[in-house]
């Protein structure tokens, strides 16, 4: 393997508390090394460069049934008029384009947050066709009839832990996500809303209970990533209260609230729609073990895709263009795909934009908040450089606020917020912090011995958006995959997973259940490591759990 020497760069490596320090970085055999015995095969002069670990996107919908439905539904946005390679729309790119665009922006790991265990084989096969980046998935639980019936009959936490650990293994995932806990399931029994403390008609259990049980399972199993939660009441004015109640449901155990922007709405004012970012971030700032990603919205056409079929069915009335699909899936969960155009003439959309930015800027600790647009729900991941500029440049931000077609200044405190994110904070929220919260060993940092996932930005580019959009060099697995801003030959990343232990007797119970009620057998539900590498096409990398299982 070639050796690489990044010479004289301005290094940002938050894990090692290195911020903007002149340093050399050496790469050999896929790892960062202290020094090289002989002259490097490739020496890159980084005098005018910023060096950071490869970026990590911990919430981006890049593979699985709903993504593919959206691709096929929105063909008219794949622009065939220009003769460039692969013109699939930025908000529903092909797998190849997904990889090309991520690596071109210096992202080296991406995580699909809504992987339905029943749809896992497809999700992994699809993600296996995304070049360059490592990927992983969070298995969706909390709307599956099996778990809900377990909770409803008062199953012991340890049995639930066994089930959760089994699902992680069977579906080759790195975390657990719950979407509208119990709500997707309740929709199948014709319930149209389910608040945190409301019982579902079928199972007589509340979302609070489900979140509590799952947060505990994830914690007791030692899974590094806290339970990843898409709260109840997505998009509903006044939902900030149920968001806070959902956080409380974890009873102090680690919890990650995703696309919190969509869950930070008040119902004040004559429009009965207001920002509750202050209430939410106040909570975020004071509560330990709580993290979130924002799900910033961007103006323009996109598509919303979610496991939350209950809410997506309600939202279909806002579809733009007017088409949509909702699906009930295998007693496991559901999905809803609804195209949407965020317009700055819309009071609600404009305020959503401001609420996301307020949330970023009011959150004090860059380790607790992550940069996402909930791709493609708030906007495509390709808008990250623009978003970073909004966070780092108050003038730019205020200008855009002034130029919005609808005046929301009475309704947002955005103008009063002086804060500008620093490069160190951006490095933290897009590198070290996500690596830590996902439990990715040797990633998101530039320590000697860590994996050589490195992004080099051109400091001379005055425009911060331009700089983040087009890093000059990217190294993945020790290979220079972007050279002078040009993407090189394809390489293929790995699938990141965790494997907490479990009592195999759960498989016996599940086998019985599958035989009786499912339409596939348990043995064909489980995806083995061999199948991952030989048939599906992606090697698995098992990450450590935080500790041994508690109960």
């Amino acid at each position: 393997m070639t050796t690489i020497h990044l010479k004289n760069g301005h290094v940002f490596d938050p894990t090692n508390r290195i911020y903007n320090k002149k340093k050399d970085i050496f790469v050999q055999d896929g790892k960062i090394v202290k020094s090289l015995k002989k002259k490097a095969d490739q020496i890159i002069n980084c005098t005018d460069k910023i060096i950071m670990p490869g970026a990590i996107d911990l919430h981006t919908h890049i593979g699985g049934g709903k993504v593919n439905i959206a691709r096929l539904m929105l063909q008219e946005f794949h622009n065939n008029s220009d003769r460039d390679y692969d013109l699939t729309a930025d908000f529903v790119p092909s797998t190849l384009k997904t990889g090309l665009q991520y690596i071109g922006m210096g992202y080296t790991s991406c995580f699909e947050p809504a992987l339905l265990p029943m749809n896992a084989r497809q999700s992994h096969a699809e993600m296996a066709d995304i070049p360059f980046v490592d990927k992983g998935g969070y298995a969706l639980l909390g709307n599956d009839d099996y778990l809900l019936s377990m909770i409803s009959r008062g199953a012991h936490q340890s049995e639930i832990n066994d089930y959760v650990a089994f699902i992680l293994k069977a579906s080759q995932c790195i975390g657990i996500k719950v979407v509208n806990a119990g709500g997707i399931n309740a929709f199948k029994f014709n319930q149209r809303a389910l608040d945190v403390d409301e019982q579902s008609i079928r199972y007589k259990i509340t979302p609070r209970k489900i979140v509590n049980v799952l947060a505990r399972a994830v914690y007791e199993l030692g899974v590094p990533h806290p339970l990843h939660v898409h709260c109840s009441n997505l998009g509903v004015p006044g939902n900030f209260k149920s968001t806070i109640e959902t956080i409380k449901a974890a009873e102090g155990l680690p919890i990650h609230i995703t696309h919190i922007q969509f869950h930070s709405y008040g119902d004040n004012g004559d429009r009965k729609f207001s920002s509750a970012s202050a209430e939410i971030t106040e909570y975020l700032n004071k509560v330990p073990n709580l993290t979130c990603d924002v799900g910033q919205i961007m103006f323009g056409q996109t598509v919303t895709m979610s496991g939350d079929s209950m809410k997506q069915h309600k939202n279909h009335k806002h579809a733009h263009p007017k088409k949509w699909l909702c699906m009930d899936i295998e007693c496991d969960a559901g999905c809803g795909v609804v195209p949407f155009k965020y317009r700055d003439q819309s009071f609600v959309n404009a305020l959503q934009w401001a609420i996301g930015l307020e949330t970023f800027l009011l959150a004090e600790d860059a380790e607790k908040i992550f940069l996402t647009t909930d791709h493609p729900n708030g906007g495509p991941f390709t808008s990250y450089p623009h978003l970073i500029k909004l966070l780092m440049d108050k003038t730019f931000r205020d200008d855009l606020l002034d130029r919005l077609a609808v005046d929301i200044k009475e309704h947002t405190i955005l103008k009063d917020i002086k804060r500008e994110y620093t490069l160190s904070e951006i490095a933290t929220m897009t590198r070290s912090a996500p690596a830590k919260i996902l439990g990715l060993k040797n990633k998101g940092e530039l320590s000697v011995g860590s994996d050589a996932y490195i992004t080099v930005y051109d400091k001379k580019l005055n425009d911060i958006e331009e700089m983040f959009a087009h890093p000059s060099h990217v190294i993945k697995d020790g290979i220079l995959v972007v050279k002078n801003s040009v993407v090189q030959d394809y390489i293929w990343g790995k699938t990141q997973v965790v494997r907490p232990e479990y009592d195999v007797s759960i498989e016996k119970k599940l086998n019985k259940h599958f035989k009786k009620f499912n339409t596939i057998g348990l043995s064909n539900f489980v995806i083995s490591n061999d199948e991952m590498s030989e048939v599906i096409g992606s090697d698995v990398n098992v990450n450590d759990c935080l500790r041994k299982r508690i109960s």
Partner: protein
Amino acid sequence: MPKISDSPKYKDIVCPFCSLHCDDIELDVEDNKIFVKSDINESCKKKFEQNNLNSITTISSQLNGKSESFDNAVKQSKKLIKNSNETVILNTSADVNITRELLTSTSKVNGIFDHINSETFLKNIDIYQRKGFMSTSLSEVKNKSDVIVLFSNNILENYPRLVERVLAPDNSFSIKANKKKIYVIGDKKNNIKQNLKKDNRIKYIDFNLRDTSILIESFITKSNETSLKENIFNELLQSINTSKYLTMCWATSEFIKNDNCYNIISAISEYVVSINETSRAACLPLAGNDGDVSNIQTTGWLTGFPSRIKFTGNYFEYDRDLYHANSLIESNKIDLVIYVNSISNKKLVLNNKNKNIIVGHPTTKYNIQPDVFIPCGIPGIDYKGLIFRTDNVVTLPLEAIKIPTHRSAQEILRRLVN
């Protein structure tokens, strides 16, 4: 030759042959011959056991119907590809991994890629490209659906175990299985004939499927404009109106013969959408049996389109009319067609105005001799693979259950285009 796995698995085998892809098949393999142990439909059994035929294992590559070595068949194919101005690569049955290879191959020869059933499956995709759609999957139907309306003249022919495994199961998780109501609407005589087991939950209603839109319209207006007897219509309507989770199920391939195919499925779909304003209902369109869904999905994630794609170097474009393989072939507009038919052995209709290469199931039938025929192994029999089930959400692993006597379609394709 790839070797069979060290500990072959003969239980819970996935059947590659129809889009239900039942995965409960138990086999014995002796002397590299397959014996189905499970008590399943004879026609399903036969599809496995026909792979024991000597004619399958011994057939070699052919040029114009005459046996040839594999190398010469490849040589001749490469010549045909080189001399072709416009090559169509037509998927006539393949799993996910062969479809991946098909797309790579098409881009290498700057060709046109399509699936033989695209005319049918595009009709289904049309619905959610144009309006709202509510759909469901097999386990939901099995466990939650209390009323099922199935439109078909011969559903068991194409999906032999659909009724026993999904529509009228012994057990349902969320409802009482014995209270399910299943209405099979279509050619009553034929449907009854096919279904041997008597089941009180199933009612067969004689109906000309051409008039399905009128039936749906009658449900909406609650007044019978069809030829159905009033009491039958009323019972049907009553069941629909009191259902908690209604499923409307059809195979678009049965409607496609009618010129109003899209109108029919669109009417059913719209009706189901409207029911969801107050109650729950969903559609279950059944896919074709030629790896249709694997084609749609794989091509979808790799290109954004379901089929009908033309490659030019690294660039590709989709055109529903321009790159429709069947119509290109019929209108003599291309000079070479490569059929890849790895799972089924259905009869392929070739056009003698263009050159024809078949990479296919050893017993693939055809109307005229192709210029080149290269037998390939079958995913799920000879090779491992991945295949999508009819409902688009479950993908199943295909096992290699015997030692292959033919190369995999992927290997052959790589030899042809590289």
